[in-house]
């Protein structure tokens, strides 16, 4: 019953039938939380990615990828993502609220 209800509810709210692109970006970004905190709100040590300027994020990741910016680990992660994925990550993190602590 609950499944049917959710289906009806989903349709009523005009949810699309496939995962949205922003959900894919959310999924891409989710792995970053181990070091950079939930939604990019680091709780210590690492840079806060939440609310980071989109262009700056993309530039940093490109510099990690090329080696222009030296790193211990970030060059290895950056090289694992396509340019399109880096743009999606930038879009996700720039849209996150910075937690006030």
């Amino acid at each position, binding site marked *: 019953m609950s499944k049917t209800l*959710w289906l009806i509810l989903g349709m009523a709210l005009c949810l699309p039938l496939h995962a949205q692109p922003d959900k894919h970006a959310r999924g891409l970004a989710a792995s970053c939380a*181990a070091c950079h905190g939930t939604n990019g709100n680091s709780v210590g040590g690492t840079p806060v990615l939440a609310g980071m300027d989109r262009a700056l994020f993309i530039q940093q990741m490109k510099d990690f990828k090329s080696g222009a910016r030296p790193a211990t680990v970030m060059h290895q992660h950056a090289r694992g993502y396509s340019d399109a994925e880096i743009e999606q990550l930038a879009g996700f993190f720039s849209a996150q609220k910075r937690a006030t602590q």
Partner: protein
Amino acid sequence: MNIDRRKFLLCASASGLLGLAPATLALGAAQQLGKRAKPPRVVIVGAGFGGATAAKYLRLWSERKIEVLLLERQQNFISCPMSNTVLGGSRNMGDITLSYDDLSKKYGIQRITAEVTGVNAEKRSVRTARGDVPYDRLILAPGIDFLFDQIAGLDAALAETQLPHAWKAGAQTALLRKQLEAMPDGGVYLLSIPKAPYRCPPGPYERVCQVAFYFKQHKPKSKIIVLDANPDITSKKGLFLKAWNELYPGMIDYRPNAQVIQVDAKTRTATTEFDAVKADVLNVLPPMRAGKAAELAGVVNVDQRWCAVNFLSYESTARPNIHVIGDAVAAGLPKSGHMATSQAKVTAAAIIELLAGNQPDADPVLANTCYSMVSDKAAMHVANVFRYNKDTKQMVAAEGGGVSDKHSDTEGSYAKYWAQNIWSDALR
């Protein structure tokens, strides 16, 4: 007996977690009338890195529209990552013990402290000593269990009292530390490593570093013997050899292809096919398999040890509506805490879509970073991005991943920040 929502709200209220009396009454009345639509319910078994993260993200991403019940037998979260530093002496048990309270308070997750005794996949219900818990979808994050019967002379009771494996952080970690403290200078610590796959590939070699760190300061004449069932160091080989040679020269005797098949607790002897080795502290890691809850649910279908899943949703290939995450999964993915949290998020997102009648993301990408502490301050890492391959239906390592150039204090700081952030991401 069914454990329903009303009962759990009463439990929550009685234990002082929330001032829920009015809500309890309202919900109770609605249930009696039978007109209030029940939200879909996900039950999660196991609140380690994977289970706790799945619980939090199901609530976050469903905007609390999915009810989440989290079953865990332990009162507190004790982190395996960083637990080797308790053996080294730079952390204590308190430093790696965290509360589950925020999961209830901040996210409205209903926690049940109980062990699972059965799973009825047809009825979609989990059995515990405190009652049956029905689910729409079940996530098993059961971690690992040990195949004690593959080592003659060893059993679970001996591990608790005399021969701790300490491969689940907790009382055995504290016991092993005590044994190291009681050992005389000039003594022998023996670590035996089972054939891969096992939980945390670099973990045993990190443990060697931590015990060596403790010996170097307090018992410099002591020796470490490593009996590895594998043909070689299974993770970060060059880095560990470098760390051992630079930081602890002459202390570590590493022996590959040495599978322990028998132990004697009285004489503290470990026996391989070729050799019998005596030690003062005997730390035998038995071969591992998926945690017991996976067996109870009938989802162990790889080598009678691990669970095959669909990597788009982590749904078991053996039973519908049951998802498996973390170390229990058979995959080309490392059995690590970070990986368990990454899998948990893919699973949470997929379940939200599936419950709404949608398809999960067809192209999941996730990442893993594992730090190993080689002293109190220095660490090194292995890092990889993994992506779904549509042809093989497996998760495969993307280009660009790798390990540190060498261990460093800088990476030691990053390891500390990693722990702070992943603990917070899973539990707060």
